[in-house]
């Protein structure tokens, strides 16, 4: 069902982890649908020096976030804006139809992290829109 590249990125995710005091952090998705992605960016002089991700979700969700981080690492903010869900999918040699939304989520997570960076630094990144606010998962599982 998954391509070799998807399986590779699922089994050996690149850039998995977190960055303390990151320049920008973006979290998208919701636990209800079963996918949450978080991307951390370390940006210096408009260049993405480091990037990390964490993902709650299926194999495709992990693979698309892993690939998205690969595609932006070392790139400029402007170049990172060009990493779309289509680019992520192509880099993974495709996704099953039912999993295309995972690649969209990866693009959104990246943009949410860039938005956070822009906000913190009081700059405007051309073409970047404010992401939907991330809903914390419900507290009801506390009694779990």
């Amino acid at each position, binding site marked *: 069902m998954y391509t070799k590249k998807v399986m590779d990125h*699922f089994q050996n995710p690149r850039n998995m982890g977190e960055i303390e005091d990151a320049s920008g952090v973006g979290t998208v998705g919701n636990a209800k649908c079963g996918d*949450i992605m978080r991307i951390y960016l370390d940006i210096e002089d408009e260049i993405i020096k480091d990037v990390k991700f964490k993902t709650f979700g299926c194999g495709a969700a992990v693979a698309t976030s892993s690939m998205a981080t690969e595609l932006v690492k070392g790139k400029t903010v402007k170049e990172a804006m060009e990493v779309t869900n289509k680019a992520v999918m192509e880099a993974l040699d495709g996704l099953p139809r039912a999993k295309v939304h995972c690649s969209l989520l990866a693009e959104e997570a990246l943009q949410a992290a860039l938005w956070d960076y822009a906000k913190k630094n009081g700059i405007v990144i051309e073409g970047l829109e404010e992401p939907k606010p991330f809903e914390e998962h419900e507290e009801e599982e506390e009694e779990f």
Partner: protein
Amino acid sequence: MNKKIYLDHAATTPTKIEVVEAMLPYFTEKFGNPSSIYEFSGQNKEAIEESRELVAKAIGANEREIFFTSGGTESDNWAILGIAESYKTKGNHIITTTIEHHAVLHTCEYLEKNGYEVTYLEVDKDGLVNPDDLKDAIKETTILISIMLANNEIGTVQPIEELGAIAKASGVLFHTDAVQGVGHVPIDVNAMHIDLLSISGHKLYGPKGIGALYVRKGIKLKSFIHGGGQEKKRRGGTENVPAIVGFGKAIELAITSMEAESKRQADLRDYLIEQVLEKIPHCRINGHKEYRLPNNANFSFEFIEGESLLIMLDMKDICASSGSACTSGSLDPSHVLLGIGLPHEIAHGSLRISLGDQNTKEEMDYLIESLIVIVARLREMSPLYEDYMKKQAKIER
């Protein structure tokens, strides 16, 4: 371990060698159409009847009450659509539950679109139907109650005898989908007041594509597959003789070994559940602790998603299943897990283990070890877990 560990027997079972051997002659030398007049075809008719007796015996029915079908789904469809059609002058109300198999649920939804009214009984947190809810739901127009004997996902076994007695006292027909129950728990259609019962061959080490519907004598049931005079004109089509023979053999073997095998598998199941709950934090068992299929364990692991878990288990040659949305092909996780009140995010992180007659304690140990590593790995990757840990750290400070 370098061999595959199959822990998905609720999905399907391997066909037993003895069963395959019993079937083989009916593909080649004994190929005759059972409806033909010559002697060598007549033998096939006898073989079918022998299987019918074996199936009847397994559930305490009379062989005249057993009709062969293509499997559990057809049996469920036939029972529900057939009764709806045959008894429509009496009423148009059907009662079922929210945790039925889709073969029942989607058939009921189809009937709703065609003028029938369906009540879906809710279940409690362990997956049990409350008999009082059933009593309250029955009305003048109720023509059928369909409640599964044992749930395919969480393994909860319903108080079928009590539910059947309620149906009987109200004069309403009672169908049960017993696909997961036959061969695992004792069933007696008379003691349990069951009027219609669905069975599948491939869930009990028989071939796929064969099943049966038990229909109590005297019940009007419209035919569903129209054709020749097979199955007393109630189910047309040339009989699948090899499959029927295999089904008979499989059910005979399953019933013979049921007591010992159920005990053995229940011991493995209990060991697995105890170890997983002890060794993996933020984990729960779904389904009833006591009224549960001997071969079923269903866990939820917080902060992780089921499909990822299944792929990682597969990489360790372990075959299992999950109720996550990704494995159901929709955005919603399993209706059964939601039906017992689990929040979506917990339902996404579920794992169903269903044991079989070849599984061993060594395999359970390997599964437990693998789960400890995989769950920890997926949590390390999970933003939900990160948030949880940070929250905990704050509370401690």
